[in-house]
């Protein structure tokens, strides 16, 4: 990446994620994307900064809310849309749906639907990298609820004793479905401290400045690359829409409008745009142009879905075994 180019790239990625997710949200209600879909609107900074901080041959693996991570690792957006629509052209041939994404070429190895289920798989990949003396790392995305599943602790323990090159990115958005963190975990628990006392290296980073976040993550990744060891990074963030689906949900009463608005006011995409202008990295006009470019591409990717044909069950009947 050319010097300073990363500013533009991060912004572009944030925007790409936002507009892709918006596109899905807007069209979900036509009832053609028929699968449980967890959107990342509001959480783009984490995905963008962490995705760009990885090298092409680094691997990432994610959980149910994974569109952003898939895109940030270079995942093909057409194939994402096709997956949601259930077409054979989807990244998982339509078999997996929104919660089971994969882009082998881009080394986005998988996202899975059971809370914490992909964690040990990521750790296993890291063991394999080490065995093969590859100088790559594995980035494992998790939500805050992942710390409630025992397998997180088992996996981290193994990664520590084997000194594996894994970076956990924990997107703490305070909620698991409708339940606030304080009702699920000890009130004054600090994730990064907990990670430390488990024996990993814990960090607490912030999403508010995605460029800074990128640099911090990049530094950590290089450290891990040089001296393989599990690092755990908590980043507080917030989802704007409902847990699963395309709607606002403050009417349900489990969280307040004012909480939501506080986060919206600090929207990281706005921040990035303003920052680029302020620092004279891009002009307002250039940004607008970029926005339109991104939008056009997404619109065209989405429109291309119309040309896809309904697949048949027999196309995948032989896929259970290889």
């Amino acid at each position: 990446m050319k010097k300073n180019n990363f500013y533009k790239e991060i912004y572009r990625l944030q925007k790409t994620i936002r507009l892709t997710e918006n596109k899905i949200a807007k069209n979900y209600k036509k009832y053609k994307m028929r699968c449980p879909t967890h959107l990342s609107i509001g959480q783009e900074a984490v995905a963008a900064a962490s995705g760009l901080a990885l090298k092409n041959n680094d691997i990432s693996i994610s959980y149910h809310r994974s569109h952003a991570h898939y895109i940030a690792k270079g995942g093909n957006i057409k194939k994402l849309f096709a997956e949601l629509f259930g077409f054979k052209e989807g990244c998982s041939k339509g078999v997996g749906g929104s919660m089971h994404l994969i882009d082998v070429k881009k080394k986005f190895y998988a996202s899975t639907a059971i809370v914490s289920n992909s964690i040990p798989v990521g750790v296993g990949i890291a063991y394999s990298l080490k065995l093969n003396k590859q100088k790559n790392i594995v980035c494992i995305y998790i939500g805050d609820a992942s710390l409630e599943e025992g397998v997180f602790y088992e996996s981290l323990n193994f990664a520590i004793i084997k000194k594996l090159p894994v970076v956990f990115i924990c997107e703490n958005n305070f909620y698991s479905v409708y339940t606030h963190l304080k009702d699920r975990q000890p009130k004054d628990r600090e994730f990064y401290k907990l990670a430390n006392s488990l024996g990993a290296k814990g960090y607490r980073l912030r999403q508010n400045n995605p460029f800074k976040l990128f640099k911090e993550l990049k530094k950590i990744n290089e450290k891990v690359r040089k001296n393989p060891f599990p690092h755990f990074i908590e980043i507080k963030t917030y989802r704007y829409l409902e847990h699963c689906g395309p709607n606002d949900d403050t009417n349900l009463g489990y969280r307040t409008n004012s909480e939501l608005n506080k986060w919206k006011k600090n929207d990281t995409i706005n921040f990035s745009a303003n920052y680029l202008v302020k620092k004279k990295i891009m002009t307002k006009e250039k940004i607008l142009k970029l926005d339109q470019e991104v939008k056009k591409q997404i619109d065209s990717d989405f429109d291309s879905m119309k040309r896809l044909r309904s697949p048949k069950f027999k196309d995948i009947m032989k896929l259970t075994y290889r």
Partner: protein
Amino acid sequence: MAITFAQAINKALHEEMKRNKNLVCFGLGINDPLRFFGTTKNLKEKFGDERVFETPTSENAMTGVGVGMSIHKNPCVMMHQRLDFFLLAMDQLVNSAAKWHYMFGGQKSVPITIRLIVGKGWGQGPTHSQSLQSWFAHIPGLKVVMPSLPNDAYNLLKSSIRDPNPVIFIEHRWLHEIEEKKILIKDSKKNIGTKLLNKGRDLTILSYSLSTIEILSMKKALFDNNVSYDHIDIATLKPLNLNLLKNSLKKTKKLLIVDTISHPICSIGSEILSQVFLDKKIKLKKNPILISLPDIPTPTSFFYTKDFYVSKKKIFNSIEKILERKLRYNLDLNEIHDVPNKNFKGPF
């Protein structure tokens, strides 16, 4: 006044919570805004959040916690919004709950009822749609109940809660909106749950859970075709009582098992077939047919599930095959195969 399956569950929970001050209910989503598909409505308001509580995402520990509560003083109802999540808890289920009474010499039993919801359609896919009743039935020490109609849901949930043993209570998500006219209160001490839903001469159709609803919806078509059949709904899968089935078979000598929510190998369907096969007193006139899901995980896509799931056509065809004659039937071409009813708009 009509009552839905979900309301019947809710009613049973309210009554049992009231009846037994020690009963506790818990689960992930139990107090969510929709109240666990409506089944736990007003429970927390009525009985407080110590007896009706939300849990962390810790399926294995919470199952053990349930065992602990119930061997001490508090029988409980644990619930999971998808059966698939419960796979994390097999150690506590099989090594603790199922064996506790036996392995400690009969001194403590585990009165826990575990409600598991089975998903279908709207892209539930490979990890949100599994139905593992045959796993549970394989394990000595567990009971397994899978009602299909509100009355049975109500009565069987009550008897499951009062049962001093662990009971796996499996609800197909698509049953929640199914209605019956009213609730008939049965003796709640027994796990009843096998009954004749239609009486006839030429064929015995056995089904459970959602499959029963599917057969019920074909009643008129079968009647119009002069198909005279016994329809047996079997809601208690473990212990499995096949008396009604066997008596029916002595008459009809023809058997169709419709088990549209299970994979075929080592399934409840296979078990029933094998028990019939082993019985000297039963001689069938034709080989039986077992309809089940293909031995393939559930795909997500709307397009694939259409042929993955068992269609009514397939059931009609199987009946034709056993009876060796053609049937006339109209299939509702407007019916969408991946939702339980027209109002359902996903995602769960």
